[in-house]
C-alpha cells in the first residue's frame, strides 16, 4: 500500500512541476495545488499506513494508528488552502494590472 501511495504522490509531483513550468498563470496555480496535494499524501504515507484502529494510546491497547501525521496533514492542508486562494486573487489582480497572464511578459525592467 505504501508503494502505491508513494507512486501516486510522485505522479502528483510530476504533473505539478509540469504545470508549474507553463506560462499561463492559472496553470501555474493549478501546478502548485497539485504539488501540495502530493506533499500531503506523502506525509500520510511516511507515517506508515495502518487502518482499522483508533489513534488512541492507552495502557493495554497495542494496536493503534499514529495520530501525528494526521495532525500535520491537517495543518498543512489549511495553510496551502489559504496560500492557494491568495495566489488566485493575486494572479487575477496582477494579470489585470499588467494586461497579460503570460509569465514571460511579466518581466519588467530595472528602473520603475
Amino acid at each position: 500500500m505504501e508503494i502505491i501511495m508513494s507512486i501516486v504522490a510522485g505522479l502528483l509531483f510530476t504533473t505539478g512541476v509540469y504545470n508549474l513550468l507553463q506560462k499561463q498563470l492559472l496553470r501555474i496555480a493549478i501546478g502548485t495545488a497539485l504539488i501540495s496535494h502530493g506533499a500531503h499524501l506523502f506525509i500520510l504515507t511516511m507515517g506508515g499506513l495502518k487502518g482499522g484502529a483508533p489513534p488512541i494510546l492507552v495502557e493495554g491497547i497495542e494496536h493503534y494508528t499514529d495520530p501525528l501525521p494526521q495532525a500535520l496533514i491537517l495543518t498543512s492542508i489549511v495553510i496551502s488552502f489559504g496560500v492557494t486562494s491568495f495566489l488566485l486573487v493575486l494572479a487575477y489582480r496582477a494579470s489585470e494590472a499588467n494586461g497579460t497572464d503570460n509569465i514571460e511578459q511579466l518581466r519588467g525592467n530595472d528602473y520603475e
Partner: protein
Amino acid sequence: MSNLAILPIIIPLLAGILLAFFPKKLRLVRLLAKLITILNLAVVTYIFSYVRQNGSLVLETGAWEAPFGIIIVADLLAVTLVLTTNIIAVAAAFYAPKSLSDQQEAFYFYAFFFLLISGVSGAFLTGDLFNLFVFFEVLLMASYALIVLGGGKAQLRESIKYLLLNLFSSMLFVTAISFVYSVVGTVNMAQIAERVKDVDQQGILTTVAVLLFFVFATKAAVFPLYYWLPNSYSVPNPVVSALFGALLTKVGIYSILRVFTLIFTHDQGMTHNLFLWLAGLTMIFGVIGALSTNNVKLIIAYNIIPAVGFMLMGIGIFTETALSGTVYYLVHDMVIKGALFLLIGALVYLAGTSDLRKMGGLIHHYPLLGWLFFLASLVLAGIPPFSGFIGKLLLLQGSLAEEEITIVIVALLSSLLILFSMIRIFIGAFWGEKDESFPVDKRAAKAFTGPIAGLLALSVILGVGAEWFYPAIQSIAEYLMAPELYIDSVLKE
C-alpha cells in the same frame, strides 16, 4: 517562569489582531504600534537578561511533555536574534508613518507588520521542525500582504514570483519533514538530534539534510537560489524592504545554523564542504549583481546576498571561532541591513528617483544623511573598528585555522567590492554640484534620520564595544558546538 518564552510570539500576534479592527484611525494606530513595539522590546530585553543568567527557558505548550507536544525553546541564540528583531521593529514603527502613504497605512500595514514580527520570533524560538514550517508560513503570509501593499503594477508582478517560489519551497519543506518523520519517527528537534545517531543508513539522512538545506537556502538566498531576491526586495515600500532585508533571509540562515549544528552533523565532509563552495559562489555572484546596476534599491538588495555568503561560510567551517563569527555577523547584518534599506528609502524619497545617474549633489542639502550613509558603507564593508569588521575577523580567523585559504581570498575580495558598490552610491548621489532649484524637504529628512541614526549608533556600539558583546557570542558558539546541551535542556535527562 518558562511561560515567559512565548511572550515574544504572543504580544505581536495579539497586537496584530487588535490593530486590524480599526485600521482607519491612523493616529491611534500609529501611537499604539510605537508603544507596543517598545513594550515588546522591553519584555524581550528582560527575557534576554534572564536567559543570560539562568540558562535556556523551555516551555512545553499545553503541558504536553517534551517529545509529544510542541515546545518553545528560548536559548541564548534564539533570544539574541529575537532581541535584534525587536530593535528593527521599533525603528520600522517610527519610520513607517513618513515613508508610507496614509492609504497604505490604512490598508492594514501595522496588522501585517506585527504578524510578521510574530512569525519571525516564532521561527527563532520554536523547538519543533513542523512548528518551524508553521511559523515560516505565518511570516510568509504576512510578507505576501506587505510586499503587495499599495498594489502597484511592478509590485503585483514581483509578488507573484515571490509567492510562487516560497510556495514551492514550503511544499518541499513539508516533504522533507515527512522524510525526517519516516526515518526517525519524531519532529521534535531535540529528539531528532538524539535519534539520528542510531540510524543505520546514514545515506538517507544526508539526502534529507540536503533537501532541507535546499528549502532553507531558498529562503536565505544562497547561490544559485538567490535570483528571486533583488527584484522582490526592491519593489515594495522602503520600510517593508527594510523588514524583509533585515529579517527574512536571516530566518533562513538561522534555520541552517540550527539544523546543521544540532541535527545533521554526521557527514560533514559532504554537507559542510558543500556550504563552503556555495558560500564562496554566493559572495561572488552577489557583489557582481551589486555592481551591475544603477538602481540604488537594487544595489542594496544585491548586497544582502554576499552577507548570506559570509554567514554560510562560518557554518561550513564549523569550528567555535567560525560559528561565533557567524552569530556575530547575523546580529550585525540584521541591524545594518535594516539601517541601509531605511537610508536608501529616505534617499529615493528625497531625490525623487532611484536611478543613480539622475542624482547628485545631495550632500549640500542633506549633510547629515550623507555622512550617515558614508558611515553605513564603512560598517557594511567591515572597516575597523565597526561591527562588520569584528564578524569578518572571527570568520577569517576560523577559516585560516582550518587552512581554507581560497574562501578567505574570496571573502576579502568581495568585501572590497561591497565597499566599492557602496561608495559608488555615495559619490553618485551625494557628491557633485549644488543644484539650487532642487526642492529641499528638511522636515521629511528629519523624520527619516531618527530611526536610521538609532540603528547605526547600535551598529557602531556593536563594533566599538565588541569586548562587551563577545562573551555572550562566544558562549552561544560553545553551546552550538555541544548539541547535548540543547537536547538535555529539552528532554530533561
